[in-house]
């Protein structure tokens, strides 16, 4: 049996009308992701990778590099322009972009988890922290109030949010705690695949460290495969076994994380690494 959980081939996401010159006139060598001929934005083009069970893959790049677009298409937040993604789940394999909307929603709610940089995207601030987790459990057809309470409470405790705060609105929480609630929510259905989009950006350093520790502990305990999107080399170094480097919508380099850091091949990656050290 293969260990693969996700296989992405030729994934592209282009905003705008597109013209035949879009691909040829964008990318790192043109230093832009905006097509000069038609103005379309090539957010991501020809992204390929395999993700294995329990593996953490890092995607690093600056804003506009296409790292978030890649993850958003995989989480069905946005539809891809081209390409395929296969999700291997138990014995089954799913051609993700061929699924209908209901099937995609079900996969997203039950088998994937997402933690956004902005907690407003991942959490509903009209309801309690526990209610946020309840929502995901309800989406996966758990309709037993008592069990929902227990599971939501346990998840919050696991992500180091006091059970006593479960019925409070996350609006009143600190940024770090909001991220913990998001992580608890993402983990509610014990998904085999988790997407983390700049989860520590904008947090205090000590809070960042604690969140990263938590992510590693979860990966160790549950064997959850993760795709970690960040612009922070430190996050990649700590979390990811393998890394893709993206720029202007293209993957310019990929490799084992220590190799990317110690022996970067592409000029951009060399600059990136040099400026971090």
């Amino acid at each position: 049996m293969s260990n693969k959980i996700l296989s992405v081939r030729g994934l592209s996401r282009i905003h705008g009308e597109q013209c035949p010159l879009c691909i040829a006139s964008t990318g790192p060598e043109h230093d832009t992701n905006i097509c000069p001929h038609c103005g379309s934005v090539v957010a991501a083009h020809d992204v390929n990778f395999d993700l294995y069970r329990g593996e953490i893959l890092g995607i690093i790049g600056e804003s506009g590099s296409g790292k978030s677009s890649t993850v958003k298409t995989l989480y069905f937040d946005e539809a891809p322009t081209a390409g395929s993604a296969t999700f291997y789940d138990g014995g089954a394999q799913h051609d993700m972009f061929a699924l209908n909307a209901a099937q995609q929603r079900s996969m997203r709610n039950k088998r994937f988890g997402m933690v956004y940089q902005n907690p407003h995207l991942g959490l509903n601030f009209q309801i309690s922290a526990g209610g946020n987790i309840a929502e995901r459990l309800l989406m996966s057809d758990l309709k037993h109030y008592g069990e929902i309470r227990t599971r939501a409470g346990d998840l919050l405790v696991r992500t180091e949010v006091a059970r006593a705060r479960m019925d409070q609105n996350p609006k009143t929480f600190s940024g770090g705690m909001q991220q913990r609630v998001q992580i608890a929510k993402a983990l509610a259905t014990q998904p085999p695949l988790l997407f983390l989009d700049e989860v520590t950006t904008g947090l205090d350093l000590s809070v960042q460290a604690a969140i990263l520790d938590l992510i590693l502990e979860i990966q160790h305990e549950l064997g959850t495969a993760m795709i970690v999107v960040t612009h922070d080399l430190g996050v990649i170094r700590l979390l990811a076994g393998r890394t893709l480097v993206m720029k202007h919508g293209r993957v310019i380099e990929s490799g084992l994380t220590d190799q990317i850091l110690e022996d970067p091949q592409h000029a951009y990656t060399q600059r990136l690494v040099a400026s971090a050290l």
Partner: protein
Amino acid sequence: MNANYELPLEDAGYSFGFLDEYAKKEVRRCILKAISIPGYQTPYASREMPMGRGFGTGGLQLTLSLIGEDDTLKVIDQGSDDSVNAVNLRQFVQLTCPGVEVTEKTQEATLIQSRHRIPEKQLTEQQILVLQVPYPDALVVVEPSEARRKVMHGEADYSRLLVKLYEDVVRFDEITISHRYPTRINGHYVIDPSPIPRWDVPRLHQSPALVLLGAGREKKIYAVPPYTLAEPLVFDDIAFRVEDFRDANGKRIACRCCGSTVSFLDELIDDAGNVTHQCSDSAYCEEEQETISARKQA
């Protein structure tokens, strides 16, 4: 309204039932669609009626499209045949549908138009109940975008409504929805059953009578066909409960007029501040009183 006014049906080109035949046909087609897809909010044209939106124009258009000369109509508002809305709508139907009988007795009616209540008396297969609906979409409280609500309905995704119930239980230890309790029809679409009390929700379930719901302002028709599942949205471990009319001693409160202990009661407070209860369904209450006095005489 001038009670003596006669609508110049022939001269002015008005049809029987006020609406022209094409309009009635359109409504009937939508009714058929609504029955075919239980609980689905079928869009329809919703004509301008000679009264304001919100006065029951949705229910009225259903009634006018369905009614024929040999029908007997009952119109009720909050359980009463005599409140303003009921009286006006009844007069309008009488005015525009010559020959139609009207009644206050539930069992005599072939067509019942109601606002906020379902009659206490068990309806039969021979009857149609039309409910007036202000807000047809149960999801409107959790999702402002209609486009997204449509997708949620299509995928039967009601988790966010359940989250609202969850929050209710967390905060108040019970589900606090008193009217318009979200109810799942035929295992798929969740409807807003119009502002009927919780008491009436179980009566939609497997009802022998066809229940049609019409929202004039929102231009939607939906249906609970006869003998169809109608299940209030609940958690597995928290049962749906109807209103519980008990006094401080746990004794079921009786209607002050007919003494019934099995009907839905309205709470009345007089000027002295005394609280009394009486049946919300006035026709039912009167009939009970008649039965009692008949028994006394015999």
